[in-house]
């Protein structure tokens, strides 16, 4: 994160004039609220923040903020964000995604973003469904989720994003619940401040296609133990947790990937020398 003098921006200063078109009751409203509160708490002016996204309900967030925004190609938000952060390390880059965009279409980018450990904050709003395209199962959908689109359920084991993030090298792994925007905001502040790739999975109910997820409010609970910097211990915890433990679950110590800028030459012959065999 860039060092900035604290400002007196209020959360509302990070909202654009565009009204969200999510369904009333959608968890993503809370995530937007948490994000703007986190930005205000960080004291960053909007022009020092870039919010990058892919495609899906959750990926609409950049348009709803007054920060720099990039509503990118499906699943490719992390590639865009990594490139941006490498050439503009002074910017705070936050990537917003959903479980379909982030874990399926963008699944490979997710692995390698964790591995590269560029100083990004990746916020995935997970509702276990493709909401924007009317309710197809996503990588985190339960195997027995029975709909007309998947009679009897997919029968496929769900993806465990936190375990995958940890195994792939993410430097900060946390889980939040959208219905607690205060706690989510605090967690996002920590995630942005932590160097390297910070992954925050936000359980964000889809009230239209998954009204059963309203019950998440009763199921979520604070993680019973504090965060560890021991990846093996974190892996054991994450493999056995119930999917509703909230808080920072892993806080690593890897140095972020930030290549040193090299001088650019306008001399073609000089440039070609670098490719000589």
């Amino acid at each position, binding site marked *: 994160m860039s060092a900035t003098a604290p400002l007196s921006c*209020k*959360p*509302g200063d990070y909202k654009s004039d565009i*009204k*969200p*078109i*999510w*369904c*009333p*009751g959608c*968890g993503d*409203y*809370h995530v937007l*609220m948490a994000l703007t*509160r*986190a930005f*205000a*708490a960080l004291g960053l002016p909007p022009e020092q923040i870039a919010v990058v996204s892919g495609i899906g309900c959750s990926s609409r967030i950049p348009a709803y903020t007054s920060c720099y925004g990039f509503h990118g190609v499906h699943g490719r938000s992390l590639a865009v964000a990594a490139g941006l952060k490498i050439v503009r390390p002074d910017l705070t880059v936050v990537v917003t995604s959903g479980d379909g965009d982030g874990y399926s279409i963008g699944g490979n980018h997710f692995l390698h973003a964790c591995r590269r450990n560029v100083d990004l904050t990746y916020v995935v709003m997970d509702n276990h469904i493709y909401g924007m395209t*009317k*309710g*197809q199962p996503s990588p985190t959908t339960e195997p027995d989720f029975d*709909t*007309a*689109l998947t009679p009897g359920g997919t029968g496929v084991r769900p993806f465990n994003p936190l375990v995958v993030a940890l195994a792939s090298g993410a430097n900060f792994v946390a889980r939040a619940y*959208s*219905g*607690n*925007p*205060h*706690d989510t*905001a*605090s967690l996002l*502040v920590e995630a942005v401040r932590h160097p390297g790739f910070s992954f925050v999975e936000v359980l964000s*109910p889809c*009230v*239209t*296609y998954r009204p059963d997820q*309203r019950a998440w*409010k009763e199921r979520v609970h604070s993680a019973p133990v504090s965060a560890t910097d021991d990846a093996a211990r974190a892996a054991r915890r994450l493999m056995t947790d119930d999917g509703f433990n909230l808080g920072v679950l892993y806080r690593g110590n890897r140095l972020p990937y930030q290549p040193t800028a090299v001088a650019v030459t306008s001399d073609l012959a000089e440039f070609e020398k670098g490719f000589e065999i």
Partner: protein
Amino acid sequence: MSEAANVRPVTSIAAFYAIAYEMETDAVERYKVLADQMQTHNNGELVLIFLDLARAEGLHAEEIRRMAGELGVESKSGPIGSWRSESPEAADLSAAHYLMTPRDALLMALAGEERAVAFYTGLAAAATDPEIRKLAEEFIAEETEHVELCHRLLRRYPPAGAERYEDPDPPLAGD
């Protein structure tokens, strides 16, 4: 969690005002979000109700700012909030629905006001400083008036029949 457990110990009048102000501004933000949602989804009656609720909470926030005077209302904890979890008065955004009725909105507001009463009751009971206790009691009275107002308004809106929640063209059309 009880509302009394939902706040850090209040050790000064300034902290009390800061928390009370945060509660009201949080309520304003949430009601405005709900009004925007209803506007997007063409539920005009609810737009007006949520804007009215936001205006009422905003007036209460300004009243608190006035009461605080030189003490100010800016929380040392910054824009995220002083309470341990969510604001006691917070409207539950996840309960919103595009077909919700004025009664649903008022019930949502009533629940928030009742939690606020419980919260200040907890503060008054826990206060060791008589000035903080007296202030908490004033806020209990204020929030109780809001509860009574919600009950009065609710009489205008009897429960709607099931047909009110029927949409001939629902968004859930996966099959």
